[in-house]
């Protein structure tokens, strides 16, 4: 496979995943905002921080308002992580690697782009927001379904999966990085309604409310949330789940080489040293330091993958 193709597949998947993550965070912000009476728009700064788009927002705006935040996250061209920007990038990458995709996957991505571009052509009013977010969710799910259902399980698939899970691990780690303080043991005892809101925000941000209830029942506490989002092996957005998937896919890719590429070794380290613990070890290590270390390792891993597989000249 061409290095350029590997690059395109990897970034196509990262951008698609990023679009989903951003729209999910918008959904979370909207939902929390509606259910917290008498509060200001503070939540939106935190939501944008979780999506890593706050700094860019502040360059263009003096204050944080709900409308401007939603607009920034969904459709601003100046925001490279807005849903519209990321879907366009995903589609541009897909065009570049058109020959590596099945007809179904390409049409799903192109259709996703056309529908989302159409839906985001104008500012989205509050009454239209649920429908637009629903459309984004459905269209991206269709791409995932087409990928899952029609692509050969070969290196093409491995690169798309690597991109997906690297982006997802990064997103989960960033949400934890922003909200880590509400998960600290010192906060355990508080149990106020404010904490409940924070916890709900975290779970919603990773589409994990239902999953959490299934695994832990209806009693929510910070320790279980941390365990679920970081170490759980079943939760498809936990750091452990994503890191394991990254490592598996890099191992399939590396199997064709006489000596395993550096990135395979790095993902192995990530899984072995950071994912095989219980949550108390993590707290002992320091939750914030732990998350920061994982984020930094994910960043380096991404760079190493680009080198190992000759994405660029």
């Amino acid at each position, binding site marked *: 496979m061409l290095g*350029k193709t590997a690059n395109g597949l990897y970034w196509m998947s990262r951008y698609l995943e990023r679009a989903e993550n951003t729209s999910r965070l918008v959904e979370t912000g909207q939902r929390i905002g509606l259910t917290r009476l008498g509060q200001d728009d503070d939540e939106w700064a935190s939501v944008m921080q979780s999506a890593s788009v706050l700094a860019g927002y502040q360059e263009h705006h003096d204050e944080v308002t709900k409308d401007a935040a939603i607009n920034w996250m969904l459709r601003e061209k100046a925001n490279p992580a807005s849903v519209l920007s990321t879907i366009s990038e995903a589609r541009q990458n897909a065009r570049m690697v058109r*020959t590596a995709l099945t007809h179904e996957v390409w*049409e799903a991505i192109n259709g996703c782009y056309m529908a989302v571009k159409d839906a985001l052509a104008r500012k989205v009013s509050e009454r239209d927001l649920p429908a637009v977010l629903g459309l984004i969710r459905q269209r991206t799910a269709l791409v995932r379904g087409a990928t899952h259902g029609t692509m050969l399980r070969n290196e093409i698939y491995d690169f798309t999966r690597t991109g997906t899970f690297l982006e997802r691990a990064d997103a989960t780690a960033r949400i934890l990085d922003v909200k880590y303080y509400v998960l600290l043991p010192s906060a355990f005892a508080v149990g106020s309604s404010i904490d409940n809101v924070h916890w709900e925000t975290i779970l919603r941000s990773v589409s994990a409310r239902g999953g959490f209830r299934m695994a832990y029942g209806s009693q929510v506490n910070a320790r279980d949330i941390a365990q679920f989002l970081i170490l759980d092996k079943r939760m498809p957005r936990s750091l452990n789940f994503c890191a394991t998937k990254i490592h598996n896919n890099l191992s399939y890719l590396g199997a064709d080489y006489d000596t395993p590429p550096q990135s395979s070794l790095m993902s192995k380290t990530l899984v072995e040293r950071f994912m095989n613990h219980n949550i108390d070890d993590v707290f002992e290590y320091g939750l914030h330091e732990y998350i920061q270390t994982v984020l930094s390792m994910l960043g380096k891993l991404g760079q190493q993958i680009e080198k190992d597989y*000759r994405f660029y000249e």
Partner: protein
Amino acid sequence: MSEKNIFDEMWGSDDVLRSPYSEFQSWFQGEDLKRLRAKQREAEEVFRLAGITFNVYGRAEAEERLIPFDIIPRIIAGREWQRLCKGIEQRVRAINAFLHDIYNRQEIIKAGRVPQEMIAKNEAFLPQMIGMTPPGGVYTHIVGIDLVRTGPDQFYVLEDNARTPSGVSYMLENRETMLQMFPELFSRNRVQPVQNYPTNLRRSLAACAPPACEGTPTVAVLTPGIYNSAYYEHAFLADQMGVELVEGHDLRVVNGRVAMRTTHGYKPIDVLYRRIDDDFLDPLNFNPESALGVPGIMDVYRAGGITIANAPGTGIADDKAIYSYMPDIVEFYTGEKAILENVPTWRCSEPDSLAYVLDNLSELVVKEVHGSGGYGMLIGPTSSKKEIEEFRKKLTARPGNYIAQPTLALSTVPIFTKTGLAPRHVDLRPFVLCSPEGINITPGGLTRVALEKGSLVVNSSQGGGTKDTWVLED
């Protein structure tokens, strides 16, 4: 249905249904216009979703546009097609022989059939190709011959496309769309398939592998990238052939071969189907500013390390100034009269011709020798006096830059309009593959249609559309 003096391919010149259209007509009569209108919209949706778009140069916002597709097929009888094929094959053989001659012994110039200055002063002539014979002796691996029709048996070659003819993806996608939308029409008519084109293209390219090739030839398609107007086609062909689609920055010369950067390191390419112009192919040998090509590829080519399809320098054969010599060229190399006629052409470089052209501007079509895409031309009969006078100035200033032809009464084929069928002018580009194994012509081709009533300009950049082209089994 037909206009006076114009040959309609469905209704002839005297409103009698022609036989290739008989099954179609009986089907159409049973159809509901409302359903067909829905089908026309459905076709557009199919094209849009598949991303079958082209980019219009010089328009940032318009980005990607659809070429309008008309759902009424153009139908050609098998025996009509056979005759055309003979003419096309003869012409393509002559073009290849001409190219070999021009870059080697130049017999045709010595024989005085083509003037020396037509070649020497021509920008399409590449001195880098002198004395070089491409692998398999093939110069034009892929050719598109543009044909127009003026009567039941009268076809003319409008131009030869011997560089990188495009449009074949439309031929294939148009058919695919028609098969999906009107399966019943294909049950009633025995339409010769076009779907083998990608397989034939790959086989044909592989048959021209260079001396350095070991084992199964590795083929790749070279594109300028996703912003090129024909990118869809490049990706489509690579996909259908099952070969890599590469850009200049994926390639470099490694150990005397042109190689592509893969996830496992550099891998040599044997046959490169390039969809970039000669000038951009190699910054070391041609335009030094080019970022689209591969530095040093010409040296590898001359050393037998790669096959470039089409060969560099083939433009000398499809230049509009050379076009007027084609009947001589065909006769010179095949020893036979040309089966397909040229449109009579005045070379404005010649004083007598220029005088005639200037006197008859309002009746002629005047074209730039190096122009393409329907730009920079004058269609006398449909131009205003002012336009003609402005053109007269340009022509007088640089006569050698122009040729002129009579305005042909191009045939019409019905298109589907809101109120039913209506005749529109068309041309036809069949696609031809050349290899040492022989010449292969796909039955059908790209029919371009001027969607505006009375218009003779079929170019997609000027608002033309396309149609599925059927060749029937007789």
